[in-house]
């Protein structure tokens, strides 16, 4: 995504999406759409983007008067058992010895990537994702973070975010204290739903108490923030079961909550073939589950940040949205705008300069490249001037629910109305449905439209042509 800021005042802070909840409209607009963690979106990346292009973009990013800070993403692909809903890139194994060779190659990749970036570019964000990052034991994570610390310069700013995704089922006594000692200050826990029926249907049996104990341990050890991921639309999910899950979590008040809609794309994601279509909630129930989550969370004082994300009012994410400084990348919403994102590990995505690129998706390909001393690139894209402009517009929409027209006109020296005549035409039916308001100053999602930001953003996507097979999850 483009990493521009939107002037304060165009945030849709404080709006409660449940007031705009319109089941009929949501149904009508429920169609596949990109999540816009990048623009252009990943399906448009091309294998023609190679190592020399990546090096050039890194070099150009170093050459800027104030080079951007760095954000590191490390992908740990291993999981001990397959969750059937999963659309992530992962490798199922109970063999803990597999982590050592992976770690060794990851350290090699760090050693190859780091020299591309000037040493005075601080790492302000670090995220360990997966897979299951805590498939690695704390001493292995320590080795990894130690290697990063030798090759990059970690920011000493108190605002730095060093986070880890946790499978609470793998957390052992003392792990959280060890993470804190490594400098990690945020954790994100997968929960999905505590309902045992659902847990069986998705092959993820996870007790309430052990999960809450992990949250407790995070707080005791001074981790600044805990996020919990939930999913609605899972097989055998019920309103009452999901409600109990929400109530259970609201008692411990995680700082952030993500409520993702399950995207059933079994033709794209093999594990999902284990899910019986007959067990999936219908459109009606999906909507009710979503509405339930929104109602409960907003009533409990959470702010709806956008897309799937909720945060407490004093959370930095909420404050960044109020200040117009919210940003969105592959890791979701973040307060760290203007970073170059370096993705390390199998399938990881980077955003360096005006480029996106992705590592080999298969473990074998990633390993081979590193063993041969090559960067394990698979594909990527260089953004042209039009991409940059549209990425900026879409970023503004996804983060602040509005596009500030004067800002874009000044930044890109365009006449907005003329340049986006097509997009504005596509927006008209959305305006008629009360999802968007548009005037000479701004394009803004209404409280109804907030739940359909993707639909609005899609009007600004130059590459969208109706596809025969859905390559993106459904909007709702």
């Amino acid at each position, binding site marked *: 995504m483009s990493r*521009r800021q939107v002037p304060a005042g165009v945030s849709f802070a404080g709006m409660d999406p449940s007031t705009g909840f319109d089941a009929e409209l949501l149904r009508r607009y429920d169609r596949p759409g990109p999540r816009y963690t990048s623009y252009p979106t990943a399906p448009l990346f091309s294998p023609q983007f190679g190592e020399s292009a990546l090096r050039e973009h890194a070099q150009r990013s*170093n*050459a*800027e*008067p*104030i*080079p951007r800070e760095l954000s590191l993403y490390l992908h740990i692909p291993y999981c001990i058992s397959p969750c059937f809903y999963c659309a992530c890139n992962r490798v199922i194994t109970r063999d803990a010895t597999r982590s050592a060779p992976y770690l060794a190659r990851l350290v090699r990749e760090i050693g190859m990537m780091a020299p591309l970036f*000037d040493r*005075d570019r601080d790492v302000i964000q670090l995220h360990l994702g997966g897979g299951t990052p805590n498939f690695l034991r704390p001493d292995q994570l320590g080795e990894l973070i130690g290697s990063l610390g030798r090759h990059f310069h970690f920011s000493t700013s108190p605002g730095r975010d060093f986070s880890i995704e946790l499978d609470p089922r793998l957390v052992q006594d003392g792990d959280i204290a060890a993470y804190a000692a490594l400098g990690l200050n945020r954790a994100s826990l997968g929960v999905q739903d505590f309902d045992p029926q659902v847990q069986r249907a998705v092959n993820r049996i996870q007790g309430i108490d052990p999960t809450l104990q992990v949250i407790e341990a995070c707080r005791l050890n001074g981790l600044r923030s805990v996020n919990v991921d939930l999913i609605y639309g899972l097989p055998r999910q019920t309103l009452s079961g999901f409600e109990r899950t929400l109530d259970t979590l609201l008692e411990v008040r995680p700082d952030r909550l993500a409520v993702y809609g399950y995207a059933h794309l079994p033709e794209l994601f093999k594990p999902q073939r284990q899910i019986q279509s007959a067990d999936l909630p219908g459109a009606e129930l999906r909507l009710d589950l979503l509405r339930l989550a929104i109602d409960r969370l907003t009533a409990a004082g959470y702010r709806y940040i956008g897309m799937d994300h909720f945060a407490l009012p004093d959370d930095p994410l909420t404050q960044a949205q109020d200040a117009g400084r919210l940003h969105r990348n592959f890791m979701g919403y973040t307060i760290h705008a203007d970073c170059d994102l370096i993705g390390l590990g199998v399938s990881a995505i980077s955003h360096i300069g005006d480029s996106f690129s992705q590592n080999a998706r298969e473990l074998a390909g990633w390993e081979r490249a590193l063993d041969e001393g090559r960067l394990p690139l698979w594909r990527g894209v260089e953004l042209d*001037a*039009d991409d*940059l*402009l549209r990425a900026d517009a879409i970023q503004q929409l996804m983060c602040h629910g509005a596009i500030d027209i004067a800002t874009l006109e000044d*930044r*890109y*020296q*365009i*006449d907005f109305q*003329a*340049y986006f005549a097509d997009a504005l035409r596509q927006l008209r039916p959305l305006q008629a449905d009360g999802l968007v308001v548009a005037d000479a100053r701004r394009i803004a999602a209404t409280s109804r439209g907030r739940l359909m930001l993707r639909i609005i953003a899609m009007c600004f996507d130059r590459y969208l042509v109706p596809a025969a097979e859905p390559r993106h999850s459904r909007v709702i």
Partner: protein
Amino acid sequence: MPAPSRSPRNPVADDGDEFRFCSTCAFSAACLVSGFDKSRLGELHVLVEHAGPYRAGEHVFREGDRFNAIAAVRVGTVKTYVTDPDGREQVHGFFLPGEVIGLNAISRARYPCNAVALETVMLCRFAFPTMAELATRMPGLQQQLFRLLSQDIGKAALLAGNFSAEHRMAAFLIALSRRYAACGFRADRYQLKMSRTDIANYLRLAAETVSRIFRRFQDQGLIRVQRREIQLLNRQALENMAETVLRDFAPN
């Protein structure tokens, strides 16, 4: 649909033709004052030839190449530099549209430095010594050559004095602004075509220092930096800082 630019590009000079000078031509005024228009220059067999495009990173000439022409930049930015015996690069200067490179070769038979394009560059080459001979018959042209030569020496003054890093940087930004304005571009908003290491090298500062000062200037509300674009928000404050450095330096 007009292509958007990330920010206002430093505009391109409009090209001249057989009968008109390019708008940024370094010599047009001098020649016109002396009563020569472009077609008469042609008659005088002065070699005025358009050269390029040179792509970013491509050399226009290298140190030691035989000197046979000075060249005015028509489009783009050129960096001149030498490499010291330890292999370290030393940046001599940056040349914008309307500015002339190769002047420091006039007294020698060979270019004393390298010149490399920082972006796509188009040049206008004026053959030497033909042009020098012409200058003896055209007082205006001669004066213009002297003026250019003295400015070229003046640029070096930016580096010579014992000035603070902030003052050098302010002088650099103000000088660029004046030079862009002189050839008809925006004075308050321009793209830095050179890398921060080039700027650092030119100002004899560390790259980190260059970034630190840019950040400080931005925090103080003097400038806004977006990627490579600089906007001067408080020109007066920058002028005040730049004054001591630029005192002896006549801008184009």
